[in-house]
């Protein structure tokens, strides 16, 4: 691991996140030591996100506790989210006839988060000039989510040697399923509550 860090190969991964996600996915699949480095990204993202959110409103001295300890909770949440979504995406891939490899999916998802660190410098500019920082926070968050999703889709396409449309289907299938389940659960709940009160 020490040699891997010294070789600075991991720096190339960060470069490939921006320039060539397919090449990144291929490199990540080849190098198992890239997995622990990948978990550094959610950690950086959680710190940057806390700072970006803190820029949007007035803070109390609690900010120092938030930035010292709060990011750990946020980091754990991000990792949990990646593992959960990664598992579902991997399952969806297997359902569609591809070979499953949850480790690679989670690894790609971790690296795909990297563009989110750009949220802080972007928000900092709008915050300093006090020019609708909340609006731009929401806008950039959505744009960066789309960017991350695009990286994962390209990574899945490379991983499963499938077309972009099929890779997108693998990635979005869990979201569609969860969305549908949540929608029908909500409809059932509303119907039950309505039925209870009108019975």
């Amino acid at each position, binding site marked *: 691991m020490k040699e891997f860090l010294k070789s*600075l190969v991991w*720096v*190339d991964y*960060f*470069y490939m996140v921006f*320039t060539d996600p397919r090449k990144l996915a291929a490199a990540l699949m080849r190098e198992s030591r890239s997995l622990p480095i990948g978990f550094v990204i959610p950690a*950086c993202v959680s*710190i*940057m996100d806390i*700072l*970006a959110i*803190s*820029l949007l409103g*007035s*803070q*109390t*001295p*609690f*900010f*120092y*506790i*938030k*930035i010292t*300890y*709060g990011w750990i*909770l946020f980091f754990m949440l991000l990792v949990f989210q990646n593992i959960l979504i990664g598992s579902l995406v991997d399952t969806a891939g297997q359902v569609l006839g591809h070979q499953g490899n949850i480790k690679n999916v989670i690894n790609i998802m971790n690296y795909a988060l990297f563009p989110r*660190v750009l949220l*802080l*410098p972007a928000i*900092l500019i709008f*915050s*300093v000039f*006090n020019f609708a920082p909340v609006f731009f926070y929401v806008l950039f968050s959505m744009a960066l989510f789309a960017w991350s999703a695009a990286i994962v889709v390209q990574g899945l396409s490379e991983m499963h040697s499938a077309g972009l449309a099929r890779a997108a289907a693998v990635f979005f299938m869990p979201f569609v399923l969860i969305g549908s389940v949540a929608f029908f659960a909500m409809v059932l709940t509303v119907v039950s509550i309505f039925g209870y009160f009108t019975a």
Partner: protein
Amino acid sequence: MDKNRKIVVSILILLVLSSVLAIIDISISMQGTGRDAYRLRSPDTGPGVGIVRIYGPIAIDASGGGPLGMAYGSDAIVQRLDDLSRDARIKAVVVRINSPGGTVAATQEIYDKIMRLRKDNIVVVASMGELAASGGYYVASACNYILANHGSITGSIGVIAVSPNLKGLFEKLGIRMNVIKSGRYKDLLSAYRDISQEERELIQEIIDSSYKKFLADVALGRNIPIPEIEPVADGRVMSGETALRHRLVDELGSFETALAKARALAKLPEDAPVYDEVTNPVERLLMSLQGARGGIDIRVDRQFPSNLPAVEYRYQP
């Protein structure tokens, strides 16, 4: 190092720089000096005033505390006062009271703790909200100085014990209770029979003893002889203005005035920091993880469900 790696390193440096700038920006805005004041101060850490809030009925929490060691009820208030007394920065404490009082023991514990703070040379100022009656006033009387709003309801110096008599209802429903007891008074204040004269005298004895203690403690805290308090210590409630006339409070004023008074009495500068309790649940959780006592919920407005009769210092209209 090749060109691509140099680009990534530049991005990483940019990110570190933005983080530092963001922290500086947040720190400046935190001081409330605005972006135009090019002055960076460290967060408030100097000598200042601590805040303790007593809202709702006062009682010892029967549930034994919440998750992550969180305490509730009067125990939490005593714990908060204890934390403040151990904090070297705290030179004065403002006790904000909005309470109709509560159980005798819980109220006395808070009173004793405040008196201990006074002995430790910490100035304690009471600030009354809408209501600081009975036990609420008992607690206030332990403070060095009491401020009430013009319309604060206070007084109600007295003790009360209320027990329902459901005998008639039980008879109507045909319910009879089987009671096997070791002594004749074991089911004292039972809800399903009339209270006897002897039992009433026993309870009255507790009430009288608690009342005497109430009077003595108010006299001690306020440094007023008991005969001067007795004429208004008949359970009556009064406005802040009337209480001032009877020397039950020292001044009419708001919470802000109480803070200013606490700073003045503790010889602190006018802009000395205020250390308020943490009320946000997420902040409390993080404080608990940090091991800090900010994780306690010191408000006592939780309802402690109990159908047991209690002797209370409580304003109960």
